[in-house]
């Protein structure tokens, strides 16, 4: 019983409850603590790590942590090169994942990532009530929320769900239930000398295909539209370079076929043909049937929102992401917020079609910090620091942010450094805020500083000025070495800022 009673956050009323102990839950809890917001954090899991306790299936992440970088490890600028560590509230415990990697790859292994998350939670003394499963949600008469859990009922005025997007999803085509989902992939040796049919051309499908190349007799990867490659989209949209090998095997005729075809159905075969997959080619509607020993649906995941839609939380898209404001609050149920990878439902401007990195740790960790500040000011009335700046220091500070600011580098055209120019309050650093909020919000004259990319491969600064309520957009030429601490960038910035700083 001592163990049970030692568990933190017993069922009770709390100002705020976070659900989830993956990177999203741990980061938002850290940030809430930094803002002085008392809260409970509950998790169905037995330990921290979220999806990294299981995946990626082939045990190596897609996100890098570079052991050697142009800046000092463990500093804020180093976060640009370390996509995986959570961000502490003080300079201690930065770059935790980097310190746990064995040096064989700059992509951490899954166990290294899990160890990093566990170490972060332990070193920062994050308390979580583990083995406490959220099972249902109610709205109380006073507008607060009740959470039913495996440990009993909790109540809170504000909820933050960081429950990931890891609930297996497959389309409704006839026979699709015969396919194993990515989540149910077995030990790779079991696919030796087999014909594998993979449905889906996202990274998960190509990850499996890459891992099975040394084992499978033949691999077919099919979905209605062509595979996108990140090296072509110049973004994280598309298959990452690490998983492109099946594509090369395909184009060189090496036992891999990549097809653009709709899956009409899957049928159970017999004897030597366990499965038949009926497809229809996208280009000419010709029906094609394939035989396979194994069929795997790498068709994605949904957000496990349980009964939140019954409360009025709208969802959209195949991943059933909740519709959200730029500050990750449900757009239909105020008081319910989202952190971690679910935050990608707050799409931002998606300029030039480039999405944010909110679906990955390197983006979501900054969203969580912005979210905590927002919750602090709007729901708890906490006054946060808004440093006053000397007029002469503004341009220097913005150049520093454009060069070193990890929020701007990881969340391009999504998060911005805001400098307000209210004549009654002086020039103030308003911190990092969502760009989509800035361009649509009313307010005093202000500067939003971002980095952006247009899909051509360049990364360049863009400055948005709000003057008398109107927004104007000003791009600065890209630097080939992505260094904006240059005379030309400074001259361009000075020219852009002159009308508001004069």
């Amino acid at each position, binding site marked *: 019983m001592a163990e049970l009673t030692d568990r933190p956050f017993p069922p009770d009323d709390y100002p705020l409850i976070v659900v989830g102990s993956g990177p999203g839950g741990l980061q938002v809890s850290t940030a809430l603590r930094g803002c002085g917001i008392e809260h409970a954090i509950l998790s169905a899991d037995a330990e921290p790590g979220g999806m990294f306790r299981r995946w990626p299936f082939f045990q190596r992440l897609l996100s890098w942590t570079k052991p050697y970088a142009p800046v000092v490890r463990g500093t804020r600028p180093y976060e640009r090169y370390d996509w995986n560590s959570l961000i502490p509230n003080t300079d201690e415990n930065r770059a935790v994942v980097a310190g746990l990697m064995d040096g064989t790859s700059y992509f951490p292994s899954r166990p290294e990532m899990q160890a990093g998350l566990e170490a972060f939670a332990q070193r920062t003394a994050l308390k979580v009530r583990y083995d406490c499963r959220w099972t249902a949600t109610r709205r109380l008469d006073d507008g607060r929320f009740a959470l039913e859990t495996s440990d009993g009922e909790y109540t809170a005025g504000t909820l933050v769900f960081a429950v990931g997007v890891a609930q297996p999803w497959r*389309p*409704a*085509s006839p026979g699709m239930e015969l396919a194993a989902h990515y989540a149910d992939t077995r030990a790779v040796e079991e696919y030796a000398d087999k014909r594998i049919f993979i449905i889906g051309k996202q990274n998960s499908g190509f990850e499996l295909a890459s891992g099975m190349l040394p084992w499978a007799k033949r691999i077919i990867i099919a*979905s*209605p*539209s062509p595979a996108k490659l990140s090296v072509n989209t110049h973004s994280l949209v598309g298959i990452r370079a690490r998983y492109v090998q099946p594509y090369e095997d395909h184009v060189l005729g090496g036992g891999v076929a990549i097809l*653009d*075809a*709709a899956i009409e159905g899957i049928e159970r075969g017999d004897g030597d043909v366990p499965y038949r997959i009926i497809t*229809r*080619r*996208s280009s000419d*509607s010709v029906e094609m049937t394939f035989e396979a020993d194994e069929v795997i649906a790498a068709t994605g995941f949904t957000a496990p929102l349980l009964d939140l839609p019954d409360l009025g939380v*709208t*969802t*959209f*898209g*195949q991943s*059933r992401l909740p*519709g959200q*404001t730029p500050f990750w609050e449900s*757009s*239909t149920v105020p008081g319910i917020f989202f952190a971690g990878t679910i935050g990608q439902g707050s*799409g931002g*401007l*998606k*300029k*030039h*079609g*480039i999405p944010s990195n909110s679906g990955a740790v390197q983006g979501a960790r900054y969203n969580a910090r912005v979210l905590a500040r927002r919750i602090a000011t709007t729901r708890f009335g906490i006054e946060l620091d808004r440093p006053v700046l000397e007029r002469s220091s503004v341009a220097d500070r913005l150049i520093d942010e454009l060069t070193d600011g990890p929020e701007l580098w990881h969340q391009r*055209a999504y998060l911005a450094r805001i400098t307000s120019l209210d004549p009654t309050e002086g020039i103030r650093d308003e911190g990092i805020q969502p760009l989509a909020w800035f*361009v*649509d919000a009313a307010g005093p004259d202000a500067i939003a500083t971002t980095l*952006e990319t*247009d*899909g051509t491969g360049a990364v360049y600064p863009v400055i948005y000025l709000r003057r008398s309520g109107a*927004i*104007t*957009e000003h*791009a600065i030429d890209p630097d080939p070495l992505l260094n904006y601490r240059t005379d030309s960038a400074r001259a361009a910035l000075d020219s852009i800022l002159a009308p508001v700083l004069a």
Partner: protein
Amino acid sequence: MADEDQIADELAGFALFADLSTPQLQGVAHAFEESLFQDEERVLRQGMTGGGFFLIMDGEASVRVDGEERARLGRGEFFGEVSILLGEPPVADVVAVGPLRCLVLAGPAVHKFLLAHPSLMYRMLQASARRLRNANRWRS
């Protein structure tokens, strides 16, 4: 909320996609991304770069120039193509009137998409011609 098969079925009912086969419609559903907008949320922003091509699946949108409404668009109608084709920022805001569900194709993907679907391009041209005719009627 809809999966790609449901979206493909919905697209089949829109004039723009009337000539596409079912696999092509599924390909379109796969290529586009679904987005939700709340009442008064801006979908396209006047003068701001980086927009996309939007197709309205549910709801209504207001086309506003300098805050003044110039048109209303509804289910099956589209917007954003003009600024992509011309390579210029939009000359109007497009704002959700009530909840708005759209399919979105990123600006840089539109050129290739249209070339891959010439019948759709033809129907888009027809729609643009109608808009131009109507604009000229108003002026005359």
